[in-house]
Structures are given as C-alpha cells and as structure tokens.
C-alpha cells in the first residue's frame, strides 16, 4: 500500500462521523437518488446513482465501524480499498457530481448524500485522486489568490475599464465602507458588466462600498476539490480583508458555491463567528428593493425565465429574492419545470466545469435543461451564477438553441431609473 493511499484511507476513516455512519446504516436502497441525478437520468447508466458513487467510503465505513465488517476484515473476507479503485471512482466522485444536492433533497430517510460526496473527496484528494484541473485551480487559489490565476493588476485593469464605461469611480481598500464586494474570477475575466452593475446600483442606493486588494476573490476551490485546509485558508483571507477594512457586510457575487462556502461553512472552517455579515448580492438587492433604494423603470421585452443556481437556491436558501427582483423588470416571466429548490443543475457545478475530461458527459447531462427551456418558450435566460451562465451558454450553443443568457444583477442595473 502506497503512502498516499494510506493517507487517503486514514482520512476516509476520520471523515466518517456520526451523520455519515447513520446515513449508511439507514440507506434503504430505494434508488430515488438515482432519479434525482441528472447524470443518471440523462445517461441511463446506473453507475451514476448517487449512493453508488460513495461505494469506497461505504466499504471503509463497513470494515472499520461495523461489527460484522470488522470480523470480515480480520478474517480476510473483505477486500481493502485500493489506489486502483479510487482512481476508477474518480469520474464518479468528481466528473459526474456537481454537488447540486438534489439527491439529498429527495432521500426519504434524509441522507445528505452531497455531504458524503464532499467527505469522500477529502480522501480522494489526499490520496492523489483528484482531477488535475481541480488540483491546479486549488493550487492557484492558494498561491496566487485566484483559481484562474487572476492577479490584482488584472482587477485594477477591470476597475479602470468599468470606470471608463460607467463614469463611476470604483473604490478600493476603503476602510469603514458599509459593503465589501467580492467577485469571482469568472466575473473579473469574462463579465466586467457585473462590476459595472454593482457600481451603478450602489450609486443609486447611496451606499458606501469597496473592493479589497487582499481579498477580491470569492470562490473557494478547497470546497470543490474537498480539502478543508485549503477551504479554510481561502475563507480566512476574506475574513482578514473584511476585518482590516472594518466593513459591516461582505457581498458574495453571482457565484453559487462561493456563497455557501463563505456564508454557511466559513465560520465552522475558521472556528469562530464573523465580525461582519455575509449576504449574496441578490439578498442585498432585494433588501434595497424592500427599502425603496432600488428604483427601476421599464420592462424586458423578451419572455424571461430563471435558472436557479443549485448552491444559491437549494443549498443556500436564496429562493424568493431572485423572483421578487425579476418581478421588477419582467412582464412576461415563466418558470421552468421543477423551479426553485427542485431545479435541475446546469451540469457544471461542484468543480465539474474545471475538469476537461468531463465535458462530453456534462453536455449529455445538459439535455434535461434543454428540454425544460424548450418547454418554457423563453427568449432570454436569466441566472445568478457566472459558472452556470457559461455552462448554460455552452449547452445552448451545443444544442443550437438561440437563447441569450444574462446575469440578474446586470439585468436589474440595466433598468435603473435615469436619475442614477
């Protein structure tokens, strides 16, 4: 047994806590999780059944923490988990799981399968079985500050660009600002319109805000690859930046997992509560709307629908805010099938879009979204996650569907009253 597999098995033993033990012992093998997984429903291959993806972890649980399993291990009647098996399982644990959480939601005995996949990824990563793409992203996130290799000069270039575009100064490192705005690398690289929208909205709302030169990146590849130590470092960086600038609220951008990582998991990762509040940008905008600080005029002409980002809606609980905001600017709005917490994933979450070898499967899984979107007859698709946005655009392009995809924040900003 190699050192890396020993470490991996050791980690798997460690991550099996009381919830995981109870999940494995209470699974009734009903198969409902399969019907909830887009990789299973769209491929028809039973190997993509969510609970099956956890087989290496289940075996470790059985061999180490059940009486019969331990006897069987002592008597040599059960085979240990090997390097080869973990490598074989890599596409199941990473390529075909977006951590979307639909399986957890439908499980009749309440097993949080996503939690289990995340824990299995810990062992996979430690034993050297994480996909190269995710490993590289995590390394860049720690060393450079961005999973996509974005450095501060690139952020400053975008600030300058947005200033030219909007005529509004973009604040950086302002101590005592009310809001600290985070971005995802995707927004820095691909979608400058997000920062432009923030600038316009904050100006209209009359709020003080700032970017932070030491913590501009919101994403957390430690969560995706399954290494808590990396996740902790990345959360701590944001906490340090926010506390240095003494801001009241940190705004998580249009990125799904960044929100759950920072808001719901961050305090546990760093072992203490924050001294500031964390809100998703849609929560902030909805708060502005409620306070009468978001004044819009006119409506979108096209029929709109909304793609619920899994981490934001199902896992994050931001369900009604996007709909209330859309109601400000959409006259002709239609829901997709299974809207809100039962939405179908775009297929690129949980790090899947960073894994090149997963592309073909991802496009196969997109068929569920394709059918749903066709049924709506929508002419524009709105979402609130930069990763979803690109994955959706790619899927729509692949299936020759002419539906533009836009971010909700920029859609709202486009309708701000002229006074702004």
């Amino acid at each position: 047994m190699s050192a890396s597999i020993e470490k991996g098995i050791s980690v798997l033993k460690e991550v099996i806590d009381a919830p995981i033990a109870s999940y494995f012992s209470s699974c009734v093998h009903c198969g409902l999780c399969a019907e909830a997984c887009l990789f299973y429903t769209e491929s028809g291959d039973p190997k993509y059944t969510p609970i099956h993806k956890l087989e290496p972890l289940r075996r470790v649980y059985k061999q180490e923490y059940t009486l019969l399993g331990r006897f069987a291990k002592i008597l040599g009647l059960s085979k240990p988990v090997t390097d080869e098996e973990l490598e074989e399982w890599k596409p199941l644990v990473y390529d075909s799981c977006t951590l979307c959480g639909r399986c957890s939601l439908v499980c009749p005995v309440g097993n949080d399968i996503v939690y289990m996949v995340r824990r299995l990824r810990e062992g996979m990563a430690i034993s050297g079985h994480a996909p190269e793409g995710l490993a590289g992203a995590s390394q860049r996130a720690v060393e450079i500050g961005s999973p996509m290799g974005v450095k501060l000069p690139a952020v400053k270039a975008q600030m300058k660009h947005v200033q030219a575009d909007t005529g509004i100064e973009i604040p950086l490192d302002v101590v005592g600002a009310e809001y600290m705005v985070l971005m995802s690398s995707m927004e820095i690289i691909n979608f400058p319109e997000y920062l432009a929208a923030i600038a316009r909205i904050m100006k209209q709302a009359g709020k003080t805000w700032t970017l932070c030169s030491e913590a501009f990146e919101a994403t957390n590849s430690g969560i995706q690859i399954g290494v808590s130590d990396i996740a902790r470092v990345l959360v701590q960086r944001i906490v340090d930046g926010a506390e240095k600038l003494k801001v009241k609220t940190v705004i998580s951008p249009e990125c799904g997992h960044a929100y759950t990582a920072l808001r719901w998991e961050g305090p546990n990762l760093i072992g203490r509560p924050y001294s500031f509040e964390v809100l998703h940008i849609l929560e902030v905008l909805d708060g502005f709307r409620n306070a009468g600080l978001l004044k819009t005029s006119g409506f979108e002409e096209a029929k709109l629908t909304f793609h619920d980002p899994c981490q934001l809606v199902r896992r994050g609980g931001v369900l009604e805010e996007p709909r209330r905001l859309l109601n400000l600017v959409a006259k002709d709005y239609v829901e997709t099938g299974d809207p809100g917490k039962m939405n179908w994933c775009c297929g690129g979450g949980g790090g899947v879009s960073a894994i090149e070898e997963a592309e073909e499967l991802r496009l196969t899984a997109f068929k569920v979204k394709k059918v749903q979107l066709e049924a709506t007859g929508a002419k524009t698709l709105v979402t609130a996650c930069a990763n979803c946005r690109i994955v959706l655009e790619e899927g729509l392009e692949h299936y020759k569907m002419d539906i533009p995809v836009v971010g909700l924040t920029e859609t709202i900003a486009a309708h701000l009253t002229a006074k702004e």
Partner: protein
Amino acid sequence: MNISNDSEFKAALSFLSGTNRRRVAAHFSENVLSLSKDARIKGAIDAAKRADITPAELAAAYQTARAASVESYTRCGRECNWNDQASHFVAEAGVACVQPDKPGANPAWDAAMQARMARTCETIATGRGTDNAEAAAQYRILAEFLNS
C-alpha cells in the same frame, strides 16, 4: 473634429445613425482583430461594415459571432491564458457589431469597450502591465470616420 476623452467620444457616438454605429463598431473591432485567429469574427465585422446588409444576414452573422464568443470563454476554474482571453473579447466586440437592435443599446460603444478589454488582456499577456493606447486609437478612428 477632435476627440480627446470618453465624454466627447460617447457624445459623438450618440449622434450616429444605427447603420453608422455598426460601421464604426466594425472599425473599432478591426483595430484589435489581429488578437484573434477566428475567421468567424472577421466575417461579422465585414457584415457590420455593409450599409446594405439585410436583417437575415445580420442575424446569421450574429449567430456565428455568438458561437465564436461562447467557444472562447475561459471556463470556471481553468487557468486564464490572457492571449486567449484577448481573442474572446475580440469575439465579443464582433458580437457587438452585429447584435440585434435593442432600445438604449449602442453597438459602437459596446464594441469599443470590448476592444479595450481585448487590448488590456493582450498587454497583461505580454507582461507590459495593463496600460495601453486603445482608447486613444478609438478616438482617432471615430474622428477620421466623422471627418470622412
């Protein structure tokens, strides 16, 4: 006519007709076209230059340019290659040239912004920082267009 800042630039663009906005957008995009190897973008730019283009031709050019733009995104979590990203923004500029008419939209301004992003990406890729003279080049291009 002399243009020396973005206020004058934006004001001058706002007075252009729809057709001329597309034509100027094409010139802005052409100025950064060397940063892209995608022939589809040149097709969109050439289409935008034509005063006699039909709505159907424009729609087809838009579809093609959109495909080039979507294909050239840097995917989430992948390391950014700034030269490739420059090419992506050239594609976005091409999309702007042939985008469908929409109230409040100005394809010339949109193309100018995307072209500046493309040039910025190129300067990051070459390690020359982020400063460049694309805005000044656009002022000159617009002034020449208006004076012609």
